[in-house]
């Protein structure tokens, strides 16, 4: 069995956390896999054995998803209805919808989980939503078509890509303003921050690059390209990324090149190209990091990747246009 089920210790810790919230059912560590279907207007929920548990109807065009810290709730941006739907992980129902500006795409919680930072693709702003009041408390202008949003580990900065401006905006949240613009490659999309808080990795979809930014100096320190054998650089459109908890490996989906690149984060060396589905766009790891799941936007499926052997082990049809994938374990 390649999926290592929940560890007893983790379950206990989660149960204690959840008990304080008086949740009737244990949520964290369900092992469930959530896939948002952009054109299916659903989040499909898979059991750990990859059978379909249920399909949760959402507002239109569900895209990015993030759990709250204790994994009781899953938040989903819904681009065509201008809301963030909230799914109760225990009951698997939409329990709330938080209004946003036009076309919300990617988002992050503030480190204290009191706010949501969300990019509004049609409006060229990063919106700050106050979670307690569900009101928009700030709008920070960005370049056109903002996409990726991520916090620095110390919570000082929020980084946002603008797909059109070819920039990473560095927003100082104390000032609620852009303090620096870093010009990267063409059509920058998504981020990971290394767990030590030192590096910001940015995928550039159309220039086939991944830029590594030094967070202390806010300068570019590396420009990486990953071209699987038989492809040309222009076929490689990196988008989604994930990083292991120890910061040793970065997983990069290569979009049209239909591969996942697994990269040694320290040496920047490629460890393996893994063949996945058509236009691989998002990737997430199980908490034991033995398995990665890749959402393939054009082949309407997900690919299950065994991280030990770094090989694909299964593909699974999930529904129309998988956008994001998150594992609750």
């Amino acid at each position, binding site marked *: 069995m390649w999926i290592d089920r929940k560890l007893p210790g983790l379950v206990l810790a989660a149960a204690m956390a959840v008990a304080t919230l008086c949740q009737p059912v244990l949520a964290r560590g369900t092992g469930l896999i959530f896939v948002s279907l952009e054109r299916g207007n659903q989040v499909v929920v898979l059991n750990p054995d990859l059978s379909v548990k249920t399909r949760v109807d959402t507002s239109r065009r569900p895209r990015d998803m993030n759990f709250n810290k204790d994994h009781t709730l899953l938040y989903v941006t819904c681009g065509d209805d201008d809301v963030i739907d909230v799914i109760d992980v225990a009951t698997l129902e939409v329990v709330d919808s938080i209004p946003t500006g036009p*076309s919300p795409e990617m988002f992050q919680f503030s480190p204290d989980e009191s706010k949501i930072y969300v990019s509004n*693709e*049609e409006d*060229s702003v990063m919106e700050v939503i106050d979670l307690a009041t569900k009101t928009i408390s700030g709008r920070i*202008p*960005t*370049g*056109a*078509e903002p996409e990726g949003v991520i916090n620095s580990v110390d919570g000082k900065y929020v980084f946002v890509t*603008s*797909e*059109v*401006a*070819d*920039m990473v905006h560095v927003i100082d949240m104390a000032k609620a303003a852009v303090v620096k*613009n870093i*010009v990267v*490659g*063409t*059509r920058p999309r998504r981020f990971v921050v290394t767990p030590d808080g030192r590096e910001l990795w940015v995928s550039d979809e*159309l*220039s086939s690059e991944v830029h590594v930014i030094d967070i202390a100096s806010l300068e570019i320190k590396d420009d990486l390209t990953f071209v699987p054998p038989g492809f*040309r650089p*222009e076929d490689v*459109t990196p988008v989604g990324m994930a990083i292991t908890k120890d910061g040793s490996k970065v997983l990069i989906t290569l979009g*049209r090149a239909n591969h996942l690149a697994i990269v040694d984060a320290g040496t920047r060396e490629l460890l393996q190209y893994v063949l996945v589905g058509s236009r691989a766009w998002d990737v997430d790891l199980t908490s034991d990091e033995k398995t990665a799941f890749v959402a393939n936007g054009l082949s309407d499926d997900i690919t299950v990747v065994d991280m030990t052997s770094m090989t694909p082990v299964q593909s699974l049809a999930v529904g129309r246009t998988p956008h994001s994938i998150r594992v609750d374990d």
Partner: protein
Amino acid sequence: MRALLLFLLLAGAAQAEDVAIGHLSLAEDPRYTQDWGYARLITPPPVITADAAGMAITDLKFTTDAMGMNVTLDARSVAGADLLATAQKMVAAGNRYLILDLPGADVAQVAQALAGQPVLLVNATAPEMALRTACFDNMVHSGPSARQTMDALAQYLRAMDWLSVLVLVGEDPLDAGLADEFQAAADRLRLSVVDRRAFTLAADPEHREGSNVKLLTGGVDYDVVFVADTRGEFGRYVPYATQLPRPVIGSVGLTAGSWHWALERDGATQVSSRFDRLTHRKIQPADWDVWIAAKSIITAAMKVPGATPATVRQFMLSDAMKLDGSKGVTLNYRAWDGQMRQPIVLATDDAAIAVAPIEGYMHQTSTLDTLGTDEPEFACD
């Protein structure tokens, strides 16, 4: 006073941070005139593509502001008689980049009139091959050439295994040019053109075989009908009227162009909906051609220190140019003919059916070069 103003404008244009873009069009461009067709047939809505240039400037404003670059737009729509004088005035006023949304013959005249002047011309919407083979050293072409669009159709026919084609050609010289390019594209992919027949709009009973679609499409077998009718007056009556039940492509039915509002991948929706919000009409291919022309100029000017029209052109033609047109791949310009490499959309009225290069068409350097005149085939006049 006027001399002083001119001096100030020129002095302003000399700063490296300024990008002064002009947009030149005809007030009554026959290609966009609403009542051009017989009895006020529905032709494309009046297209004012200068809005698209403005949109590109706004799209990139965050970046240009951050770089301290001031981008201006000087849009002029003039009568044909004033065209060349206006072009001269726009250069004198400090515009270093002119986007031309003009019929092909006018584009050539402007290029000749402005030869040797410090200005880069971007031909946005004239597809004529003669403008490419003229090899104007002050010009690039952002909108697709006729050959690019015809190659896209030919690839689709080959992929669908629709291999024999009946070609119908109108009276306009542009129609013959389009049919010639289709023939060249068909030859390259070994499609068979079973016949090439001229149609006429006259209802003269002596020439029924030229105006009656059923007669015009009879007496021969074919998989598909290709119609070259840039005016669109005749072509609209061809679908569902052919003697054999066959699909119609070319100027009607399945058409090939740079853009379609129904494209929805790769950020295309965002471009189309931004345009819709700005102008309250659906984006046309000509709008995209102008939008990407302005975006090309600004993108290149940002990358070239002390940008001049000549160095910006040189940069556009190099591999260093990486342009995002929301078509899923990076775009740049071919060194040999100044033509932008780009995917071509095959669309019906309300759906994007396919995007060329169709999967499986390979090329030794760039799959985008399977569309349009390739380097070994190309020669300047």
